[in-house]
């Protein structure tokens, strides 16, 4: 079926792994070469940069060459891997994943740059960017590989392995380099997501055995398959399977998978790991967590639940929408009451990810495109917000919203960037957040009237908590304690400006992203739309 193969995605995914190996070699070579600790640290940082940036470049090539109008899976790398279970190494991107891969490349680069100690006071040796640098960088790169892989994998088993691969580095990155309660946060994150993913494992095995005979890429016969595209083709077959635990097969599998993904989203009531993880994680890790890891949840739903288990997806439509609305409104209310800036941003992530759920559930073109665009936008905005929280934390060593005041007097640039990011996050028209939220709501309204109206009321709450924060931190009389704080340094500019620029550009001109994904997403939801009576004809 697919003739041409390319290793582009493979290179992109595993280049960071080369960095891991290189850092390992560097550590081993250290006694031989008599390198100082400083030299090793710098070497590790350099290697991290040198292996992250090529991935970014490759993702650019991918974006450039991706044919959005054609849709379908592109840049395929497909070869048998483990024949015992008919597992294949199957990488490829379609309109859904291409945006996520680009996001991963971008945010990873930002995170690596944000992990540099430039501009951190020399005496601050406890800063995460100065502690055990080689280990940190190696884990960061490992995480990067996992994230790329999750979005590129089209074999369910491969997907699962890479999905789990993401857990470990995250655990250590939070647990070793995090804040005071890092161990609690790390294990909570780990347990939560593992609990979800084991459910996915069972569901995956069940789907595997339910699949019908097919062939591997090299033509050998296979009794069952993990190939996600083929599983989607066989979607009707799963309806006929014997019940699991006395319940309909597809619904049980769907719910298991959904919970696995919902934990990552994170969906109410599975979200309580997120605030802790974010508060304790060092800034670049929060950036990755919010920017990329959360996207794995809805991505998984759209990659697995939607095409492979369509009947159950239809069945659960209202549930997903209701949980989406709860996410939006409930988390926004929780935001209002937060005292820690990072926790506030974390909860705002929960709230904004609710739009993704709502948009997905509508099965309208606007809803689904809005949902995925919201994933992308949230992937731009919330990293910026976490970087912003990091800036203030690096300077003042706390993040209590009430503890500041009047900072805009001596940090005008920082204030402006923060204001812009806040505005983008609260959905100010003209910035990117608005487009996706509006698309989601517009797309959802014909289907869920009351739910959409309730969700839309989130815009008021969101405005309230952001402005309140703005006012408490930046406006009013300058708190003399912080009169000596300095404005952004070059490292922070290097990470924040690209994100902020994207917020503006993609608010006024979102089509480059929307065009990439529209055909894929619309063909994904069209069957649902037809089934719900939303659309007749093309």
């Amino acid at each position: 079926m697919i003739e041409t193969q390319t290793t582009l995605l493979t290179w992109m995914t595993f280049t960071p792994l080369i960095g891991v190996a290189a850092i390992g070699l560097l550590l081993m070579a250290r006694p031989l070469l008599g390198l100082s600790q400083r030299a090793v640290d710098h070497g590790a940082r350099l290697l991290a940069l040198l292996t992250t940036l090529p991935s970014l470049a490759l993702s650019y090539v991918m974006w450039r060459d991706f044919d959005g109008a054609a849709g379908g899976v592109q840049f395929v790398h497909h070869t048998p891997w483990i024949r015992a279970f008919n597992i294949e190494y199957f990488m490829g991107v379609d309109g859904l994943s291409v945006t996520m891969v680009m996001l991963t490349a971008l945010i990873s680069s930002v995170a690596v740059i944000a992990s540099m100690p430039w501009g951190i006071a020399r005496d601050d040796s406890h800063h995460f960017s100065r502690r055990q640098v080689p280990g940190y960088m190696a884990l960061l790169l490992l995480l990067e590989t996992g994230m790329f892989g999750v979005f590129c994998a089209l074999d369910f088993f491969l997907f699962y392995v890479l999905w789990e691969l993401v857990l470990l580095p995250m655990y250590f990155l939070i647990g070793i380099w995090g804040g005071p309660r890092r161990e609690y946060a790390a294990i909570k994150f780990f347990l939560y997501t593992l609990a979800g993913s084991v459910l996915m494992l069972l569901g995956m095995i069940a789907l595997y055995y339910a699949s019908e005979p097919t062939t591997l890429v090299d033509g050998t016969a296979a009794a069952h398959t993990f190939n996600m595209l083929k599983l989607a083709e066989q979607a009707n077959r799963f309806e006929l399977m014997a019940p699991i635990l006395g319940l309909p097969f597809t619904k049980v599998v769907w719910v298991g998978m959904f919970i696995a993904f919902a934990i990552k989203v994170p969906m109410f009531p599975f979200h309580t790991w997120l605030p802790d993880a974010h508060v304790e994680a060092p800034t670049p890790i929060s950036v990755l967590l919010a920017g990329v890891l959360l996207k794995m949840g809805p991505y998984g739903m759209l990659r697995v639940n939607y095409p492979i288990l369509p009947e159950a997806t239809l069945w659960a439509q209202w549930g997903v929408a209701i949980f989406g609305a709860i996410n939006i409104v409930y988390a926004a209310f929780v935001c209002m009451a937060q005292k820690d800036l990072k926790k506030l941003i974390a909860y705002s992530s929960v709230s904004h990810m609710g739009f993704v759920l709502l948009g997905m559930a509508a099965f309208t073109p606007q809803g689904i495109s809005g949902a995925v665009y919201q994933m992308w936008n949230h992937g731009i905005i919330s990293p910026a917000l976490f970087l912003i929280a990091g800036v203030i934390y690096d300077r003042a060593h706390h993040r209590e919203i009430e503890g500041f005041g009047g900072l805009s007097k001596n940090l005008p640039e920082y204030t402006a960037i923060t204001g812009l990011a806040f505005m983008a996050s609260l959905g100010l028209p003209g910035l990117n957040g608005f487009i996706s939220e509006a698309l989601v709501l517009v797309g959802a309204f014909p289907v869920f009237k009351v739910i959409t109206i309730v969700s839309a009321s989130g815009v008021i709450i969101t405005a309230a908590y952001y402005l309140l924060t703005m006012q408490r931190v930046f406006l009013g009389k300058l708190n003399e304690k912080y009169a000596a704080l300095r404005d952004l340094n070059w490292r922070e500019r290097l990470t924040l400006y690209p994100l902020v620029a994207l917020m503006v550009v993609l608010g006024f001109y979102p089509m480059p992203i929307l065009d990439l994904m529209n055909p894929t997403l619309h063909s994904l939801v069209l069957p649902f739309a037809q089934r719900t009576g939303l659309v007749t004809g093309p």
Partner: protein
Amino acid sequence: MESRVLPTNLLAFIPLFPLVGAAINGLFGAHLQRAFGKKAIGLVGVALPWAAFVFAVLAVAQLWREPEGTTLVHRVYGWIGVGFLSVEVAFALDRLSAMMVLVVTFVGSLIHVYSLGYMAEDKAFWRFFSYLNLFLFAMLVLVLADNVLLMFVGWEGVGLCSYLLIGFWYEDLANARAGAKAFVVNRIGDFGFLVGFFILFWGLGGAFTETGYHIGSGYSLAFRDLPALVATAGDKTLWGLDLFTWVGILFFVGATGKSAQIPLYVWLPDAMAGPTPVSALIHAATMVTAGVFLVARMNFLYAHSPLAMTIVAMVGAATALFAATIGVFQYDIKKVLAYSTVSQLGYMFVGVGVGAFWAGAYHLLTHAFFKAALFLGAGSVILAMHHEQDMRKMGGLGKVMPVTRWTYWLACVAISGFPIASGFFSKDEILWQAFNTNALLVPGWLPWLLGFAAAGLTSFYMWRSYFMTFTGPLAKIEGHGHGRGHGHQDAAPREQPAVITGVLVVLAAGAVLASLIGLPMLWTGHAPWLEHFLAPTFAAAEGLPKTFTGHEAHRLEWLLMLASTAVATIGLGLAWWLYRGRDNPVPAQLAARFPGTHRVVFNKYFVDEAYQRSFVWGFMSTSRLSAWFDQHILDALVNLVAALTRLFAALDGLIDAYVVDGMVNTVGNGVRASGRGLRQLQTGRIPQYLAVVVAGAVMLVVLARFIVDVYT
């Protein structure tokens, strides 16, 4: 009247100029100001709005040459395209937006000039001009937008700028709070706007039928296409109301936020915390009229929905009277003007609400001039008084500030409705149209009566402010100021420089001359020029029913006109008697006589307090409750699961001396205590182990027996 579309490449430049200005001053302003001084900032900040004005004139001139019903459209690029939703960044100029764009660019540019003088001493000069230009950009996008979504960009954009400018002097936290309040209250309105937009999109998008969801053909969100599209979707209903009514009411909810109507007017008086040019430009002349503009824009919806029209008209009328009563008791000159603005906006809504869209638009135009003149005049006074805004501390300024005084006087004449100035014509047209309408669910005299009463009060409080400020003994300046760098050394108030007074003169002249385009048919024998000019845009209003026609109508109109003049005169007279020369003891006596009434009205009917105690309190409580729930219930549930896990472990008798950290936040100690009692199983003593084996084996036997019974 056939409508036609004429492509043009001119329109995008009108908003673009101020955007460029905002970008230059915003990104590089601090450096520019340091390198070249405030002149450079001012040059950029003022020249670009004027350039926008020039282009606006050019564009309007082009429209002028075309036959009526023409819309100039400038398509810039495709903005959002998803499925059948396709939104362009495109600007359109029809006659309504032509009027608006001229008002906005002209008055806006004038106020920019004024700001050169007003803000001359401020350190953040560049920031001010950047914000002000950005506001102009957003306002022009709002006015020129070709479709609803793009209009929403401008709509929220002006809200943002309003927020920024109200809180311009952010070091005073009260200003920042006022800005945030404005933004959030506006957002409540915007929520209505958004929901209205969803319903509109849904309504246009198609209909659910037995066979599915049909997408309308020729789908568009452009204003010029909407009337025809809406007409085809007119039979759609949602929860018992038709599409027109829903969208109309919800857009009006948006308008009440932006245009400060009941119940969302509360932000506007607080917004006076911003610099006075901001109050004049945003909170009097342009932004706050956006709601009126929106209703006028969507006239084809309202014309179809008596319910929506009634709501608009009655809310407008009620607001007009309500705000006027508050205005009577204010001492802060800007607060007086703020409530006056709320009240005048109410008139505009009465106009558009009763189907006299052109009259509402006309009042919008005249109000832009006279209210800008009033605010800027007040600004001039405030500067002269070294940022003192309390009228009780002013007085006698007419002698030292002649230009300010007489321009203020002219504007007062205009607003209070004396037949020589523009306010009379616009307000009277609205009142007459209200009286005469038969399109509402209530009789037309009801909104008229409210508006009529408000007219008298308006005259009274405006002249009260005039007399308190400009007559009586000359005020002394108390040596405080707000320390914003306005370090005037001389203590006596004096006239302001030409850059300020010049603007005042132009605006006052405008306030008078604007009457020329709205002279009523009674006087000239033909329909007012502006009505004729705007007629193509308001075609939907033509068929609305009237109560009186012909000769009877003429007689009534004369009668009402006389009544209006009379009530304005009464107001003037009262103000003259009570406040001229500032030596009449009656006001104080009256206040002492009716302390309760005075207290209630003086404190603005305690509406802010009521909101604070109800909505805000409820909102914050919900928030705290949610956070508490999240932390103590949801998170604890997780911990409870962990604790239960541990409890089972404890039952196994294997609890450790200390609790593994982490998961135990809540139940830890309890589990530990119970665990100690239960940890006796793995004691290390062999007989006991063996007993466990035997017990286990017995249990297995029982279990097996049970299984066999069940399964064989």
